[in-house]
Structure formats: C-alpha cells, structure tokens
C-alpha cells in the first residue's frame, strides 16, 4: 500500500458512462489485476478502481459512472490532484499462463485485462481477448487489445456490435488458461461452461481496501478471503458459486 497524490493528465469519456483517466504519480511496483483506492472530495469512502495500464510514471484507469462519487470524478479536470492508495490487493499470476492465453472481460471488468495483456504480450504469449458488452454504445478497449497484438473478439448482448451473445459463446473448448474480470453472472457462466482453469477478479463493496475492516470478505473453498487483500484475483477453482 502506498498513499500519495496524483496529478490528473486527462479525463475523457470513451463509451457510454465509461471514462478514461490518466494520472501521473508513483507507479512503481504496480501489478496487473491490482487496484487503487481513490479519495473523491466530499465522499467518505474511497472508490476502488482497477489498474488499466502503466506507462512510465503514468497510470491509466477506466471507470464507469455509477453514482455521485464517480460522477464527480468524471467532472474532474487535468491539473487537479487526487489522493490515492496504490498497489492494493493481489493481481493476476502471470506464471500460470501457457503460450496461448485467453483473457475474458465483461463491461468495466475489461480494463485490468489491458495491462495484463500488455505484460503477457511482452513475454511473447499469444493472447486471445474476448470482450462482452451489453450494447454498442458501451463498447471500448477493442483497439487497445488489437494494438498490443492480441486477437480480439467482441460480442454484445443485443447484437448491435460484434457478435450477438455472451462471452462464453465465443470461447472454444477446451480453452487455454484464462484470466477473467467482469460481472458475477459472467464469471459464473465461465466457471460452468469453460471450467476453472483460470483466474478471476472479484468485485465487492469495500470499506478500507487495505485489509483492515474485513467488509469485503467472501467465503471460498480455502476459507474466508478478503477481496481487497487476498484478492481481487482468485484462482477460479477456489471460488464458490
């Protein structure tokens, strides 16, 4: 955990209710799948947001406006600063990947997979990204994966962009080791139809984000685990559905 001030370099809307913010600060030791906790002025608890990309001393986050706190974040301007806790939680274990890797993201679960894919590509892995959204207006990140040299497939629930359907429709079986992040029903469907040979990033309402309040604990096959501390990334086989 590191607590520091970050300068906002840019903050733009990239899809419906989805914003991309680039901040400058101390990016050392941040791992794919970890998250940051952002103090939003006027709101008591911090907002946990996944690390989307790291480039030198710049951190990219992609967040959805889901309430007053994130609405306020969306109105913030370049030059403003944010108090952020960084290097939180345990991210994806890259050592588990074979030469062929699948990354599966749904909605605003997609962002952490971008930094992950970047690191996997740097190791020379073949990365197949399967991204699911509700509808065309919510689609983002396709070109980010493409520019990293990943094979990208997109589906939407209503068929307005890419293939109609859900991510599990696009995953050939048997699937290689996967990394997933997205809404709970998507993760459950992956576990049921693709299997548990992968890692999943979980989401839960958090108090502290640093492991002290145990507000975000979930029961797993290995016992009680804090999403903010032992997670957010868990081996899929540990999770109870």
């Amino acid at each position: 955990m590191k607590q520091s001030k970050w300068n906002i370099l840019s903050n733009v809307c990239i899809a419906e209710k989805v914003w991309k913010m680039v901040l400058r600060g101390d990016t050392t030791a941040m791992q794919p799948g970890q998250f940051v906790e952002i103090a939003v002025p006027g709101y008591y608890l911090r907002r946990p947001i996944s690390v989307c990309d790291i480039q030198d001393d710049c951190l990219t986050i992609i967040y959805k406006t889901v309430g007053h706190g994130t609405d306020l974040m969306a109105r913030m301007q370049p030059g403003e600063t944010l108090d952020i806790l960084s290097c939180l939680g345990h991210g994806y274990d890259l050592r588990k990947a074979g030469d062929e890797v699948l990354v599966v993201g749904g909605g605003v679960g997609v962002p952490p997979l971008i930094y992950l894919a970047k690191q996997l590509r740097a190791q020379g892995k073949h990365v197949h990204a399967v991204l699911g959204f509700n509808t065309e207006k919510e689609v983002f990140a396709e070109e980010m994966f493409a520019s990293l040299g990943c094979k990208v497939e997109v589906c939407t629930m209503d068929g307005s962009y890419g293939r109609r359907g859900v991510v599990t429709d696009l995953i050939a079986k048997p699937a290689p080791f996967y990394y997933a992040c997205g809404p709970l029903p998507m993760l459950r469907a992956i576990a049921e139809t693709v299997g548990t040979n992968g890692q999943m990033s979980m989401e839960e309402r958090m108090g502290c984000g640093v492991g002290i309040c145990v507000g975000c604990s979930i029961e797993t096959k290995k016992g009680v685990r804090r999403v903010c501390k032992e997670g957010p990334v868990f081996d899929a086989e540990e999770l109870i559905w």
Partner: protein
Amino acid sequence: MVVQLGHITLKNPVIPASGTCGFGQEMHEWLDLNILGAIATKGTTRLPRYGNPVPRIAECGATGMLNAVGLQNPGVEEVIRHEIPALRQIYQGPIIANVSGFNIEDYAYVCERVDKETDAAILEVNISCPNVHNGGMAFGTSPKAAAEVTRAVKAVTTKPVFMKLSPNVTDITAIARACVEAGADGLCLINTVLGMRIDIRRRKPVLANRYGGYSGPGIFPIALRMVNQVSKACPGTPIIGCGGVQRAEDVIEMMMAGASAVEIGAANLQNPNACKQIIEQLPEVMQELQIDHLRDIIGIV
C-alpha cells in the same frame, strides 16, 4: 501526550478502534504500530465467525459509512495461538483485547481465555455490536443484562475490564452506571449507531443485513454528548471516547468531554494513516490551545 487509562499508562491517547486495525498485521505494512497509544484488536468470539453476507459496507455521503460485518474473526483459540503472538512480534505497547459473545457464558469464557493466555492490558467487552442477532447489542441496551455481563467477566479476570457501550439506547447513563456498579473498571463509548441505506433503483437495502452500524464524522456530536453525559454520571471511571474522531482537534474535544483516551475507527478506513497524522498533529494543537498536559483537560466541559 502521556495519558492514564486507569492504571495503564499510554504514551498518547490515540488508539485504533476494534475492527479498524485487525490484529495489526496489515497496518504494520505502512505504519510503525509502536507510535500508537494502544491497539484495540478485532472483536473476538468463542468460535470462528464469517460474519454477515456481503454487501456489508455502505457509504453515507461525506459523513461516514455503515458496516454490517457481523464480528468476522478467527475465534479465541486462533487469536491466542496466532494473532496476539504475531502482534507482539511487531508491537510492544498495550493491547486492548475486544471480546464479544452471544450469551453470558461466551463472554466469560472468551475473557477467561484471553486473561490466561495473553498479555492484553485491558479487556474491552463489546455489549454493543448492532450487527449480530441474539447477542451483542442486546446486552448493551438493558442495564440489568449489561451488569450481568460485567459481573460474569469480572469474576474470571484480574485485568481491567472496559465495557463498550451502545448509543442505541434512551439513556446511556443508566447502562453506564449499571456496568460501573457491577465492577467495570472503565467504559468505552460509543459503538456504531444503528442505521440503514436503501438502493432506490433496486428498491432494496444496500446492506445484505438490512441494517448496519453508522460510523464516521456524522456520529461525532452524538459520541461527544454521550461521553459527556457518562463522565458526569460516573465520575472517576476512565472513559475511552470513540465515534467519528477524524483529527487532533476532535481528540481534544473528546477529552474535554470526559474521555481519558480516544479510539479512532472509521477514519482508519478512509485514511490508513489517520492515527499517525493525528498523533503528529496533537502536539501542535496542544501548543496552540496552551495545553501542557492532556490530563488537565479531561472532562473540563
């Protein structure tokens, strides 16, 4: 900044509250625990508990948060065997062991185990958890039940016993007096205020437990009033003031209301360095207010 809590000397009055510092291991990653006046460890029960279903956290704008964790803890044996010894590796100051129960025998059992097997300086007996059914707050809302728990605990320990009181009562002084008359060495107040948030889009409570404990700066005036009332009702009984303390000025205010030491709760969740910053600010604030010794201001209002 030295204060006395009964016979226990604290290097300063700042204590992370139970449930907001675990057993110290996480906090140790970013701050030296030995700067703290004491540490109040996570509420411990006889058996391990997962607690309530998630979601168990809800925000309340700028004023605080609700929690309905429900006493998640590894159980007293694990606390004795692993948590307290591990805390001792990194922290040499006073430990305030917070214990909870679902019946009077539980309270006595856990206190006896902690008394016998740990070097905790104080037992903080939680009769005010709003998030568990069949216990917790039920003992803190009746003077008779509060006295019974106090007596049962005092019978099994020689350590100072501080009863942690609930604000969810009509007259907190009646509960406080009952505890003191039953032998309590001190009091800690307040625990969280029972509250609720509703997700108006889903038309459902935000918390899976429906209700939860409200903490944060929004409860500071309530805590201050209750500490003041109890300090007047129970003169000579040391009080740990708790509830919504965010900064050094709040510590001073809480002490002027009657507290001998102050627990910091929700502020740790918002700012993991809250205790450290408060301890660092305290000398400046004391100087500005021309306070030479903190003991001089306890209960002066």
